[in-house]
């Protein structure tokens, strides 16, 4: 073993993040076979799969639908979902019991750092209940509503969910959102209280909340400590007992739902599939319904917890498939797969995710443009929900306007650009898409329709042809201790929300729901909410469609010259305040020059706000002798270099930083 320990392959395998790709490469390049690896010949015990018994231990054909359970865990951020998943994997022997197992299913750095799940992952486990072995498929879900498109997809492959609630924090905003996602699908819910070992745990209070909100009876609720591993077996039992088996038939022609896909550099797209009917084997010719493309199944298996080939999947089972899909677009999420020449009724598929938050992304240094382009392309391979438009700005250069599902989604995307691609970017303040209705046959033809969606306010059609503006709304849920009621109602009203509906969850906690413009919660709403509630408030939102709104286009001008990149669409009631703030910001960010600079914000011809930058009348050092010459010349030369980074608006020199300070979030 010692000899093995020092070998590079061994070191490679020591890394717990090993993927099948590594094994695959090993197989190809070194002639080492997977089974050798798994049999422990070149494998260390620290890697969970290295156990010969387990390999021979199951045969998927022994798991007809009635012995299969497909489930998800849904929870608010930090309520311990990933820890519970770790314990389920450990208890059933998928991974070895080790303190090193931390959020095995969260594979991205950003997921581990923030304790959030971004990409759904699945894992299969075997569990014996009353003498019968069951195949349980845990389909992970992201915890945040920004990713609820992912949640919906995951849930579509499940027959039930575990609703995990922190016994200390109680029901939080995302708990509510996620519960209703499952409830709307008629999925049975297993309520589980986590962290009951902690001193502050109040299981009774939380059960009261669950009852009040979701009509869950206290006796249904399980109590666990995922950290200590208590109550895990009860959870496994409940999965088998309370969640129905998938309705599937091995005898029927093949029908699979592709509910997730991700891209790997060497093998192309890998797709997560739920087999709804029939059997799919390695070597089968399969067809995707929408793309009408035929692929040969090269590898098929279960996630155990990473890709583990089984060469076959039967009706009711969940696993992965690799079928020479070179392009991620060939593995469109929501696709129905069947055998070539044996079409079946396709699944309804998924509505593509609607990006609701748009922001300009520009390389911090324009020489990095190509590198950033590559990075964005690679990231979007695995995240098709990001909307990409090429954008350019006189100030920031060539870049993109990207659409995200929400703020967290945007944050995660930017963080991943940084962490995984080392790309340093300038992100402009996010804005929402607007819809405007225009008149005039010619205009309608020019803009391609009566309703025009505006992603970038400076691309708004002429105001004269617009008859109606619409902005996206959200239904926001705030849960907070009742003592903050006044402040919470105030902030919601300030943000143009409807008067919030208020519900007591228990004696001390309240839930507020209100319909707000998405634009109002984009930038600092959550931060303010947190600070006014000493960190106790949680917030979540869901789309509530577009609503007619009193919007105005605000232009900013420097000495009468319009500054395109600052154009904003604002609600009439807020336009003056915001315009004033932006003018003030411009005033402090643009250096004084040798002439007067007038900064104006205007709606049409009406000036909303104005700030002046007084000219300096003297700018010359009144002293310059022998010893000063070098120093002075050097200083002036540095300024000369700086001229390259100035943007000229008319005659006004605006440093690039001035715009960045105003545009960035």
């Amino acid at each position: 073993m010692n000899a093995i320990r020092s070998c590079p392959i061994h070191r490679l395998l020591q890394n717990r993040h090993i993927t099948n790709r590594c094994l695959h490469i090993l197989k190809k390049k070194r002639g080492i076979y997977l089974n050798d690896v798994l049999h422990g010949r070149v494998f260390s015990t620290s890697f969970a799969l290295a156990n010969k018994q387990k390999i021979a231990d199951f045969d998927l054909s022994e798991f007809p639908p009635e012995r299969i359970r497909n489930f998800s865990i849904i929870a608010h951020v930090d309520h311990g979902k990933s820890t519970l998943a770790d314990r389920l994997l450990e208890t059933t022997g998928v991974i070895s019991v080790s303190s090193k197992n931390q959020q095995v299913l969260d594979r991205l750095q950003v997921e581990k750092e923030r304790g959030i799940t971004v990409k759904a992952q699945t894992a299969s486990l075997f569990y014996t209940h009353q003498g019968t072995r069951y195949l349980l498929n845990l389909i992970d879900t992201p915890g945040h509503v920004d990713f609820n498109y992912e949640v919906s997809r995951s849930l579509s492959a499940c027959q039930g969910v575990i609703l995990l609630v922190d016994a200390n924090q109680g029901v939080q905003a995302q708990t509510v959102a996620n519960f209703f996602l499952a409830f709307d699908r008629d999925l049975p819910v297993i309520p589980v209280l986590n962290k009951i070992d902690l001193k502050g745990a109040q299981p009774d209070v939380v059960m009261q909340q669950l009852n009040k909100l979701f009509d869950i009876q206290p006796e249904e609720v399980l109590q666990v400590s995922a950290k200590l591993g208590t109550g895990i077996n009860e959870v496994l039992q409940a999965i088998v007992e309370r969640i129905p088996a998938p309705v599937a038939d091995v005898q029927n022609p093949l029908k699979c739902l592709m509910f997730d896909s991700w891209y790997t550099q060497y093998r192309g797209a890998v797709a997560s599939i739920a087999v709804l009917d029939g059997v799919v084997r390695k070597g089968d010719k399969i067809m995707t319904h929408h793309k009408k493309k035929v692929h040969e199944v090269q590898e098929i298996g279960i996630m155990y917890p990473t890709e583990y080939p089984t060469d076959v999947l039967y009706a009711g089972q969940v696993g992965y498939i690799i079928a020479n899909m070179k392009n991620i677009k060939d593995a469109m999420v929501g696709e129905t797969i069947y055998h070539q020449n044996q079409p079946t009724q396709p699944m309804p598929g998924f509505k593509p995710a609607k990006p609701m938050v748009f922001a300009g992304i520009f390389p911090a240094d324009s020489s990095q443009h190509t590198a950033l382009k590559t990075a964005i392309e690679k990231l979007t391979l695995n995240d098709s929900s990001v909307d990409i438009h090429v954008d350019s700005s006189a100030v920031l250069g060539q870049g993109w306007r990207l659409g995200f599902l929400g703020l967290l989604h945007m944050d995660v995307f930017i963080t991943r650009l940084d962490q995984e691609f080392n790309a340093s970017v300038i992100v402009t303040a996010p804005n929402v898409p607007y819809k405007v209705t225009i008149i005039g046959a010619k205009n309608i033809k020019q803009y391609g329709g009566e309703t025009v969606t505006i992603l970038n306010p400076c691309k708004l059609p002429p105001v004269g042809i617009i008859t109606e503006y619409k902005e996206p709304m959200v239904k926001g849920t705030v849960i907070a201790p009742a003592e903050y009621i006044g402040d919470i109602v105030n902030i919601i009203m300030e943000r143009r929300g409807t008067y919030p509906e208020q519900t007591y969850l228990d004696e001390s906690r309240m839930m507020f729901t209100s319909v707000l413009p998405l634009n109002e919660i984009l930038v600092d709403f959550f931060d303010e909410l947190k600070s006014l509630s000493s960190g106790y408030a949680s917030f979540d939102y869901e789309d509530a469609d577009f609503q007619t709104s009193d919007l105005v286009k605000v232009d900013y001008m420097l000495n009468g010259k319009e500054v395109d990149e600052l154009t904003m669409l604002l609600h009439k009631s807020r336009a003056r305040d915001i315009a004033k703030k932006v003018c003030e910001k411009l005033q402090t960010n643009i250096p004084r020059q040798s002439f007067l600079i007038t900064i104006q914000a205007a709606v049409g011809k009406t000036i909303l706000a104005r700030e002046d930058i007084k000219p300096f009348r003297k700018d010359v050092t009144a002293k310059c002798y022998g010893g000063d010459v070098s120093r002075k010349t050097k200083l002036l030369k540095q300024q000369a270099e700086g001229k390259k980074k100035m943007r000229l608006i008319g005659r006004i020199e605006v440093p690039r930083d001035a715009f960045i300070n105003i545009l960035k979030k």
Partner: protein
Amino acid sequence: MVNTELERMSTALHKMRARVLLDNLFSLRPSRWKSSQVMKEALRDTLDDEATLYVHWPYCARRCTYCNFNKYISKSVEHTRMADCLAKETSTLLQLSGVSRVKSIFFGGGTPSLALPSTVGKVIDTVADHVTFTEGSEVTLEANPTHLAIGKLKDFQHVGVNRLSVGVQALNTEDLKLLGRDHSVTEALRCVEAAKCVFPEHVSVDLMFGRPGQSVEAWRKELHQVIDMDVNHVSLYQLTVERGTQLFKWVDSGHVTVPDNDTMADMYIAAVELLEAHGLERYEVSNFAKQGSESKHNQAYWQGSQYIGVGPGAHGRFIPVTKQQANNGQHGREARIQTLEPDNWMFEVEKFGHATRKIISQSTKVRLEELLCLGLRTREGVTNVNWSKVIDISYLQSFGSSERCQQFVEEGLLRFEQSGVRATSKGLLILDTILPHLLYELGQLCDNEGVT
């Protein structure tokens, strides 16, 4: 020893050649100057043949609260040793520069009026030993207007000083205290009077504006007092709060406040108006003189002429004789800085004959940049003559026709004329805003033309 001998020989040869070219120069008619290659070379060589000399006296009696200059407060100045070292370094650098004429010596500091007149005399004598003084040459000494200095004026005159620059700074007792000056208003007035007797028409007054708490009105009154002194030259400094000074700490802690930029502008503009109305014309941003009383010394800096820096921390710009031979004087100009700290400086001078700590070769581009930055500060601007000492005049023409320069011309900030380029009075006021643009443009031109 052999080396020194060689250097002397080459200097002598060089002088001979320069003399021949100089003769050629005067035989040419002005109209042919521009086209004449001979003329250009002649100019370059005459220039190389002449320099001004700056001599730094590093000691002060006390520390002024605003001063970040290279100065040392010492109770036991080794006067004899300093005198020997200043003379020795003067001798070494003069020989190294190969010049045969000096048109100005400036004793600055520190407080050079604290030096013994014999020390000043020794330096002047050393110069006279090596080179000739250009006719009408200027020997200036900076003086703090104390009783002590007043008593020494005649002695300084006796050893060869012919111009006095009096550091009046303020005519307000409170301000003098705040600035940490060691003289009173009465002393200042008396010193100027005495100096006018000893150095008629050759007295300059240094004045500082933008002092803590100073108002434009008070400043005007003070200017009138200065005008009443009837001196031929005035230098105005805007007080700058430099890091590391006592004043910086006071300002930083809010203990004192200096006038804001707008007030500073008002003060400067008021000074220009008042002084010019009384015959003291601005011939450089900070310098005002009656006609014919402009300081030769400072003009040398601004015109891109050679200067030799002697003494601790002194700066110089000249073409050493070795480089003059190597490539006909082109690209041979060096920026030199002497060792800062007096004890180390003396040690090095005694050991090596000079204490040049740093030498930076100046490229044509760098010389042009300096010429532009300094020349535009003057009334004459950058003249064709001074420009062509560095590079062909055609470059100034292409520079002037650039879009940026033309824009400044249109805005009435710059003027390109037959004799060269200069800033208008409007342009002069905001020169630091214009210069980066001009340097940028100059950089583009140099890049395009392959001038390094």
